[in-house]
């Protein structure tokens, strides 16, 4: 019943595609210097490497600066409603398993107005690649604090400082048991490319938090953890977790159950936690996400978790196939008559 995927159309764009093939003719309207430009360029660069025909890519967004993203991609795109992109994208991916569906969202869109849809998409393991551009501020409405802003943030709507404790997006995703959870940074080209590539090949919900600079309302929010800064921890599956200017620091698990930052020379490399992104239990990944609330302290980037779990759309369609196999394709006349009809002469 998924034959809607086949339309004649024009010919597919000839392969191999290039980055340019994914740039739409729309004028990009982000502020000069915005971190979104780097992310857009990176995504456009990754697309040709995926081997997916352009017509089978769909970008869905909500509202906010990040949500303008689909307009700039020469693919199918749907700029929808504040917070609702995961719901709309779930409808697309569940009914059309032949498509690769992306959700592009921001910290306000995904974690404030759309928090419910985000966690449920991840809980279900809908086949979506969710890119959350986190700039820890409301940009399009001109600078109010967001659900990821640090406590005490002074903004136009919080002149005496914000009072609400921020969300850590990676912690939220792990709490919702997302099957792929990663973090990257707007201008770390190779790292972001690597995370995007792995996310796209993941079956189920892949969630990437991307630290994104808003140079107008929250400039420099992530400077402490950018490339070559001592506070950045790069997670590598199977590797002991080390960081610092000379890799002199590491992360170890205390006998009491907490993670601690240790001096490697002091404790020895064998005492360090070895990162296992494929652990079934999300607990350790969650602890890693808690090392820093906001990127001031030592902050991990990279793949926190990737596990396999049945995919919502696949199962939904499998139930249809199973019902047809068990009961035969539905017969409308039989359905309408029902088992208890009678005849009036």
């Amino acid at each position, binding site marked *: 019943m998924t034959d809607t995927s086949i339309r004649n159309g024009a010919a597919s764009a000839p392969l191999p595609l290039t980055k340019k093939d994914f740039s739409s003719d729309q004028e990009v309207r982000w502020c000069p210097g915005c971190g979104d430009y780097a992310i857009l360029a990176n995504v456009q660069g990754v697309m040709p490497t995926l081997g997916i*025909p352009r017509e089978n890519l769909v970008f869905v967004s909500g509202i906010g600066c990040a949500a303008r993203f689909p307009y700039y991609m020469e693919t199918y795109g749907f700029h929808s409603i504040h917070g609702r992109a995961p719901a709309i994208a779930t409808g697309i991916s569940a009914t059309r398993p032949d498509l690769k569906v992306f959700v592009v969202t921001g910290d306000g869109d995904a974690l404030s107005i759309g928090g419910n849809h985000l966690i449920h998409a991840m809980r279900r393991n809908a086949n979506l690649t969710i890119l959350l551009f986190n700039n820890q501020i409301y940009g399009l409405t001109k600078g109010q604090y967001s659900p990821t802003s640090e406590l005490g943030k002074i903004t136009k709507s919080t002149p005496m400082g914000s009072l609400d404790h921020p969300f850590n997006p990676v912690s939220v995703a792990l709490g919702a048991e997302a099957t792929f959870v990663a973090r990257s940074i707007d201008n770390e080209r190779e790292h972001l490319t690597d995370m995007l590539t792995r996310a796209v090949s993941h079956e189920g919900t892949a969630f990437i938090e991307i630290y994104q600079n808003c140079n107008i309302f929250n400039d420099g929010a992530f400077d402490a953890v950018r490339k070559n800064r001592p506070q950045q921890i790069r997670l590598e599956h199977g590797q002991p977790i080390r960081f610092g200017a000379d890799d002199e620091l590491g992360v170890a698990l205390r006998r009491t159950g907490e993670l601690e930052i240790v001096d490697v020379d002091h404790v020895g490399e064998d005492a360090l936690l070895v990162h296992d992104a494929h652990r079934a239990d999300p607990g350790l990944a969650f602890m890693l996400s808690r090392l820093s609330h906001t990127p001031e302290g030592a902050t991990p980037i990279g793949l926190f978790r990737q596990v396999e779990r049945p995919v919502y759309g696949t199962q939904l369609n499998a139930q249809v196939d199973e019902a*047809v196999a068990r009961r035969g394709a539905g017969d409308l006349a039989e359905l*309408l008559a*029902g088992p208890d009809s009678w005849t009036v002469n």
Partner: protein
Amino acid sequence: MTTKTVEQRDTVTIRFAGDSGDGMQLTGNRFTSVSAVLGNDVATLPDFPAEIRAPAGSLPGVSGFQLHFADHDILTPGDAPDVLVAMNPAALRTNVEDLEPGATVIVNSDAFSAGNLRKARYDTNPLDDASLSAFNVVSVPLSTLTVGALDDTGLNKKEKERAKNMFALGLMSWMFSRPTEPTIEWVRAKFASQPELADANISAFTAGFAFGETTELFAHSYEVAPAALPPGRYRQITGNTAIAYGLVAAAERSGLPLFLGGYPITPASDVLHELARLKHFGVRTFQAEDEIAGVGAALGAAFAGILAATVTSGPGVALKAETIGLAVSVELPLLVLNIQRGGPSTGLPTKTEQSDLLQAMYGRNGEAPVPIIAAATPGDCFYAAIEAARLAVTYRTPVFLLSDGYLANGAEPWRVPAVDDLPDLTSAVQFADGPNHGGEFWPFQRDPETLARPWATPGTPGLEHRIGGLEKADGTGDISYDPDNHQRMTELRAAKVARIAEAIPAVEVDRAEDARLLVLGWGSTYGPIRAAVRRARADGLPVAVAHLRHLNPFPANLGEVLRSYDRVLVPEMNSGQLQRLLRAEYLVDVQGYHRVTGLPFTTAELVDAISHELKGLS
């Protein structure tokens, strides 16, 4: 055994009332099925509380099921019951006011204990005083008789007592000469895996039937002959089942797979349940995390080229409003089914009302016109769903389909249509497959006839494009803040919906000689209005009657029809919502009859309303 006389009746209304846990809905449904198969015309009115099981014996816990069956075609579940079966004092108290003098009241005398009387706020036992003297009261110790009939089963007393509704059903089956075999077969099938329970229920049922035959409490039984319905194959159907089947039929007749995104809500959930069972028709149902996600996923599916629907009631529509507005803006087909209930807010979840018409019409930000269709009867829900799908797919627009709690749960005999006679929607489904503007593809280039934009679905090579809730440039669909473009797009969206008037039938008036009064209805008031007009005409009152299926846009001839009568009466289960629309649209001084009791209109009150309007004319 003495043979009792059988008295012929042309029409009977029975109401079963008891505790929510007493099985009154099941009893009523069984009686309805048997009566329908017997050839009577039937109309039902289930009436139950929102609470699943309020405290036993309490007034809020009473659940009722009224059915009207006759030897001729009937239009309503009946005004006043001829027979009330009351399983306890609370059921008596909450229903006795609806009875006319002379009605028969059958009570379970075992349940009239001091405790139950207190719970029903009776100071004295109504069976012992004169308060019921206007009625023919028959006290039957239903619990005792049921327990007695199940003596040799292995069930405990509580389990035995639970079968008392089957005893009551048996007694009523005797009283109205219903065949027993279909019910026995039905019990066997229902309890196939628990033969002990099947036997017990059948024993209670046959004991009830035998009790009627032998007791001296009843002098005679009644017979209601089959009705002369148009020939054909019939089944019993409720509005919610009919809507679900209508969607499946629309999918099959359009060649599109069906997707339903929804969230449980009374009284709409049964549509979700029904469709969830029909996966072998390629139906995919999605129980979302909330109402917004239900409609959101449906809109996503619509973008992907699926026949997409969401089903809810008024409070859910309030939550979906923003997504419906987006569907207006991106011009995609989307079915929004509102099974209306009493409002505002949570209101009366299990009771009926027609008070969401203006919500459907105007309940969105900005200028966001949406076509609206309303179903008239439970069986008509099937055809209304197909029509809603036809408009949505043809015009690439969200469409509201309004049903309500009365249609949703009410049942009637329904002539089963031949599949080939159903509308063929394949020509309405046109997917874009190539450039439409020189060598380019313009997602908002319109069909000159319908003004619909192309339905270009992901997966189609060369038609990659972006849509969204920002205003789009006419034609290209690019974001546009141009003042004149916004004016033009607003007009185009309105014109597209208005143009539907050219593709729907004219409103048909059932005229009466010399009629100066037109009674105009919409939705589930169809039955009560037709019944009232029939009775008014029988009383010699000249009345014309018409019913609207399309509420936005209105049929092209409606203004002319309204203006050709001296007076127009619009009865509605709201405070005058259609009346307001008609006055605004046509400047005709339409009169209203408005009541919101959570129950359908009675024939009698509408006859009074008609008489009142006619007096105003003379």
